[in-house]
Every structure is written in C-alpha cells, then in structure tokens.
C-alpha cells in the first residue's frame, strides 16, 4: 500500500472491504421489514414527545405501547400520530398527554387519507429535524469559535452515579485537558426497555443516561467551555435496549459523540441480535445525520478473548462495523472504530504487537478517527503498574496518530475512577504526547521485522475470517463465538419481543428524511 509503513498488500485490503460490504448488505436484508419498540419511541422523541406519567413511565413508551397493544404498530407510530394530528389539530406532545390521560385512543380515530397523513407527519418531522440541526449548527459555530484540542482527543469517562457529582468530575477533567467527557451509564440501564426520566443521583458504575442528565452536563460544560475558551465535547452510550432513543435524546441536547455498537449489547448484555442491529441502524442514522461521531466497541472483545489470538476478529469487526455505519449514512470522518491496548503485561514484545495493531487500524481506515482504548483487562490493584502500562499506551497513541483516546487511569483495575485518578491519567497523557509529539513522523518499521510481520499476519487472518463470515453471514458468526469468545443465538436474547413486523404502508419519517438527506 502506498505510504504504508506496514507494507500491507492492497489486494488483501480491497478483498476485506469487499467481503465486509457483502456482510453488511446481508445484514440489511436480514433485518428488513421490521421495526422495534425503541425505534418507534425514538420517532416520537424526535417529534418532540417528552415527559413521563404519574407512574414514571416515559410518554414515548405510553404512546408506543398504546398503539402496539392495539395491534397498530406495524404501520409505524408516525402513521397514527400523523392521523391524529390531522384529525384533532394537536401536536405530538399534546397527543401523548391525551393518550396518557386516557382521553383518546389513536387507533379509533377516523382515518384520513394516507397521503395526507404522511405529508402532515413528514412536515412536522422535517421541522423538528431542522430545529435540531439548527442547534447543531450553533454548536459547531461555538466549537469553531472556542476551538478544541488537537487530536488525539482525550476521552474521559465519568461514572459516579450522581449527575451532580459527575459535573464536578467533568470540570476537573476539562481543567486537566480532557476534550471529550463521556457520561457512562449505570449497570442496570442496558436492560431497561425505556429511558428513565429526569435527573438522577443513584447509579452503579455509571450514571443513568436521561435527557435531564444530558442537559445538566451540557449546560455545565458549555459554561466551562465559554469561561475557559476551549470547547469540551460530550459523549454517552447508545447501547442496550434503547439505542436509537438515546441517539435522539443526545441530538436534542447537543451531544457531540456517542458510543454506538449493537454488538456490545448482544455479546455482553444478552440482547437479541436482530433487535440490536435494527436499533443500531436507526440510532447510527440519527447520529450520522446530525454530525455526531460514533464510537464502535471492538475493544470489548479483548476483555473476554485473548488480545493476541483475537486480534484478527477485531480487525474483521472494524471492516464490518465500518460498512454497517456507512450503510446508516455515517461518513468516514464520523466513524471512530474501536481498538484497544490489551495484551497481557508479561508478553515479551507486547508493545511491538500493540504498535503493529494500532498502526494497522490507522492505515486500514485513514479517514476514520479511531477510538483507542487503554489497558483494563490485565490491570489489577497495583495502580502504579497500571500507570506504567498507561504510559506505553499513550506512547503508541501519539506515535500512531489515533483520533480519539480514552485515557487510562491508575485505578482502572480497582473501581470507577476517583476525581484525582483521571487527572493523574491526563497528566501522563500530557507528558507523553508532548515528549513524543512527532515520533510517528520519524519512524519507519524494519522490513519483515516483528511489527510489519505481525500486522500482515493479523490482516491476512482477518481476511480469512471475513471471507468465512461472508459465506455464513454475521448472525452465524456471532453464534460461533467469533467475537469476544461469546456465543449468542439469533432466536435468543432480551428484547426479542420488542421486534415488530412492518405492514404494507409502514411509515417512518425519520428514516425516510434522513435517508433522503444522505443520498440526495
């Protein structure tokens, strides 16, 4: 490959892309003709429905369940909302309130002409999308006005469980040079088939992703950014059973980045494959449309599978995820594919293998930012050793030019970071990024040496794997425990009951409008 430091064979790379395209197309066919409860709920959210009833059931759930129980969801929630808007003159939010109060039954209202329904709801949807886009335009202007740090962007997690504590931690992160703050979600949230409502102060290993929490963080960080003259991004997780809803909430609240990978939920939360991939498609579409950068989760595989043996599965997955993201209309500049520094500490020349893998990812996806994750799996209570491992990780990050780096913290093997742990992590990053700033430009790898050979071997094995998956399909590959050594069956898993077969006349204005915009 021209300009390749790894001397990669362009023919193999092209064949990988071709196989990945084929795999992604198959997935598209396999999930076609279906929608999910959460996709429909995200339509209501983008139409402006918010709030919860007296039992804390979010109104998007009230609305979608109301139609689903009456067997109408095969037409899409937009159809019923559009009709009710036409016939009653109410807004989507007013309709949700009326349904919640038991005043109207959407499926019993006289039906207007299909065309008129579509036009009415499409018009409403276009207006809302325009409103959100307008906010993102302002945000982009703010980002440009204030400026941000140069890549690799320093991505830092806050996870206290209490959104108000998260704000304090986030400010400490910003002060120490963090560029992106990710509100990591509470342990139980992935399995909830709704998004909790309102600000929350109790979470475990993370803080609930709610729209109110997003807003609280956004306001605090915007204030910080204005005061200090540097824009700080926010990120959260489109994962679990509500991927596309979280994407919608993030859109309203101006989140800049989102982790967005169905495989994480499928493998590690036992979410049904089809459910996850349908939700992912729409959720990535929403992120893509508003210019949000998505992060994929290949790093996770290395937490349950061996980093050396499983390297080809990471590369293969990156090819597939890249194609799946593109099929959802996400441009390369917004696809931060996942990668991680997870080789066990005693492995001789482990650093060289990490270097090879990091450089390989960079070269295979030159236009994608790449999200590089720190060592975690083999980190333990010896926080000083973890800090040392992080130094090597930081060195590889800067020398291979990763786009986004999740920073390592010394207490990674113990608990979710305390306020000073992140600052220590960021100081380590500062030190290494500065001291080795242009190292990447100076380095060429020995022809046929350990690094080149390793990268070529991983690529070749990824190619074999991709060809095999192209034959069997992605679902079968997941069943065969290709990723993370975890096996999941297509008929199993949580959320399967929330998949709905669409009927003749199904209508999703969000998807239609976004697709039009992408392919216009």
């Amino acid at each position, binding site marked *: 490959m021209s300009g390749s430091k790894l001397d990669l064979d362009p023919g193999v790379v092209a064949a990988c892309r071709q196989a990945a395209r084929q795999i992604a197309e198959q997935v598209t066919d396999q999930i076609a003709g279906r929608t999910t409860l959460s996709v429909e709920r995200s339509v209501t959210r983008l139409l402006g429905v918010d709030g919860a009833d007296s039992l804390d059931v979010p109104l998007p759930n009230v609305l979608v369940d109301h139609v689903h129980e009456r067997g109408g969801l095969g037409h899409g929630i937009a159809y019923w909302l559009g009709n009710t808007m036409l016939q009653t003159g109410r807004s989507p939010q007013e309709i949700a309130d009326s349904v919640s109060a038991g005043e109207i039954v959407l499926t019993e209202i006289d039906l207007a002409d299909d065309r008129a329904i579509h036009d009415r709801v499409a018009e409403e949807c276009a207006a809302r999308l325009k409103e959100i886009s307008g906010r993102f335009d302002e945000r982009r202007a703010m980002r440009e006005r204030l400026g941000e740090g140069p890549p690799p962007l320093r991505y830092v997690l806050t996870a206290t469980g209490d959104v108000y504590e998260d704000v304090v931690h986030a*400010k*400490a992160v910003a*002060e120490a040079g963090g560029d992106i703050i990710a509100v990591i979600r509470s342990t139980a949230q992935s*399995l909830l088939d709704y998004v909790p409502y309102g600000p929350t102060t*109790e979470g475990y290993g993370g803080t609930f992703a709610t729209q109110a929490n997003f807003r609280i963080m956004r306001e605090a960080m915007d204030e910080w950014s204005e005061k200090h003259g540097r824009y700080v991004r926010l990120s959260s997780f489109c994962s679990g059973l509500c991927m596309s809803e979280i994407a919608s909430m993030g859109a309203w609240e101006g989140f800049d980045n989102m982790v967005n990978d169905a495989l994480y939920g499928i493998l*590690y939360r036992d979410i049904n494959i089809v459910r996850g991939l349908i939700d992912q498609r729409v959720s990535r579409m929403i992120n893509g449309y508003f210019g949000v950068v998505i992060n994929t989760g290949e790093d996770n595989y290395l937490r349950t599978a061996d980093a050396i043996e499983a390297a080809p599965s990471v590369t293969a997955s990156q090819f597939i995820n890249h194609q799946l993201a593109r099929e959802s209309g996400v441009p390369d500049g917004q696809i931060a594919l996942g990668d991680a520094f997870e080789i066990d500490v005693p492995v001789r020349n482990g650093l060289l293998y990490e270097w090879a893998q990091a450089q390989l990812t960079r070269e295979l996806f030159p236009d994608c930012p790449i999200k590089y994750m720190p060592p975690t799996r083999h980190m333990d209570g010896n926080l000083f050793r973890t800090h040392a491992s992080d130094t090597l990780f930081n060195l590889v990050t800067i020398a291979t030019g990763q786009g986004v780096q999740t920073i390592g913290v010394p207490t990674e093997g113990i608990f979710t970071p305390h*306020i000073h742990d992140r600052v220590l992590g960021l100081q380590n990053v500062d030190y290494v990024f500065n001291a080795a700033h242009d190292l990447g430009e100076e380095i060429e790898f020995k022809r046929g040496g350990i690094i080149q050979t390793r990268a070529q071997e991983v690529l070749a094995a990824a190619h074999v794997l991709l060809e095999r998956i192209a034959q069997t399909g992605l679902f079968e590959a997941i069943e065969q425990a290709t990723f993370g050594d975890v096996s999941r069956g297509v008929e199993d898993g949580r959320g399967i009951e929330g998949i709905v077969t669409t009927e003749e006349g199904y209508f999703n204005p969000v998807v239609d409008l976004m697709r039009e915009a992408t392919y216009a």
Partner: protein
Amino acid sequence: MPRTVDLTAVTPYADHLGDGLVQLSFTLPVPYSLAARKAALELAGKMGFEEPEVVHYQQLTDGYTYFVMYGRCVQTVDFTALQGEGFDIEYMGEEEIESFAAEHLGRRIVVVGASTGSDTHSVGIDAMLNLKGYHGHHGLEGYRSFQTYNLGSQVPNSVLVAKAIEVGADAILVSQTVTQQNLHVHNLTELVEMVEAEGKRGEIILACGGPRVSSELAKELGYDAGFSKGTYPHHLATFIVRELAARVATAG
C-alpha cells in the same frame, strides 16, 4: 548487627526498620491554597500520623485540591496473634480433591453459580466453573466429583435460588464485580435472605467471590466463604469438599 523485627509490634517499613512511613493521597473539597495545605496536614495529624508532610498538591478544579503526603505511623499491630488467618490454608490439588470427595462423599457434588443482579461480569464465575478454567487450572466442570450449572451473568437472585432448589444443589456460588455504592453488598445480602426464606440456609453452602469480596465481608453477610483475586478453582473445590465432609461427619 542487623536489627530483628519485633513481630508483636509491627509498624510500616520504608527506609529503616521501624520508621513507620506511610504514603497517602486524597482530595479535599476546598480551594487550592495554603489553607488547603494546612487542612491536609491537620487531617493527617488527626489520622494519627506524626510528622505529616505534603510532598505534592494541586488544584483539580475550582474548590478541589489533591494531595500526596507522607506521615509516620506510630501504631503497631501484634502479628503473632494473627497466625492462621487464611493464607495458611493448605489447598488440595485436583486429584486429591477427587479422591477426597470419593472417599468422604461418594457422590457428585452439585453446584449452581452465577453473576447476579445486573452484573454482567462473567469472567470470574466462568473461571471457577467452566472447563476452560483459569490460568491453566480447569474449572469445576472438569472435575469428576462435581456436577456444575453455570447460569451466566445478569441472573436475578430469585432465578439462581430456584435453580439451586430444583437441582438439589449442595452449594450456591455467586460472583459480584460491580461494587460502586455497595451494589454487591445489596445483591449478596438479598440472596442470603432468599435462601433463608426458602428454609434452605442450613442445607446449602453459600460461597461468593469477586475482586472486592473478602472472606471477612462474606462472613459478615452470612456466607460460608468469600474468595477474591487470585482464586483458582481448586481453592473453591477444596473448601466445598471439606465443608461437605464436615457436615456429613457431624450429621453421621
């Protein structure tokens, strides 16, 4: 003449025997200032450290200051009184366990395990139960004397207890990794309560494990044993076969 350690009055060792030097680091929710430094010194004094010294301090954000300190600890512990507190257990090897079980129990031991509640971390329980095991030691599934059921992760306590009763388990094995806000304590306690409510506490051995689980914590919560980092399947198996054999002996 080299000095010898007085094991009845042990204090931390840094540079010289008996210097008592301790490193500590923490954050105070006060603005970065000389007063903050004073506050840290005073606090260390109240913790009982002599000659406390701030070697580094810095602002984290407005109103928060981080410290690295040293201080001399003047407390001592009597190490001689603490012998036999755990590390000295002699674990049996796999074959030894098999023959011990055959001799003392003469039947397969049924164990049911899971990572419970919303905890999705399964590597620990898999390490104990699955054939593959951990660092080259296979899990109980690979033992002739054990019949294992691994329910995986995110398993509600109620499901785990029901399964244990259904298969007549000798032991329930619980793994807990997420400990923030004491989530693990809550989950572990709930399981004990459920087993008690079923009237099975006397019949079933309860063992738990996880990176932040200690045998002290486990016992405090009503478990028979708790295991942490560095546990291998044969450690667990040794405990189970000995405990069952003891129970058989007292019953017989």
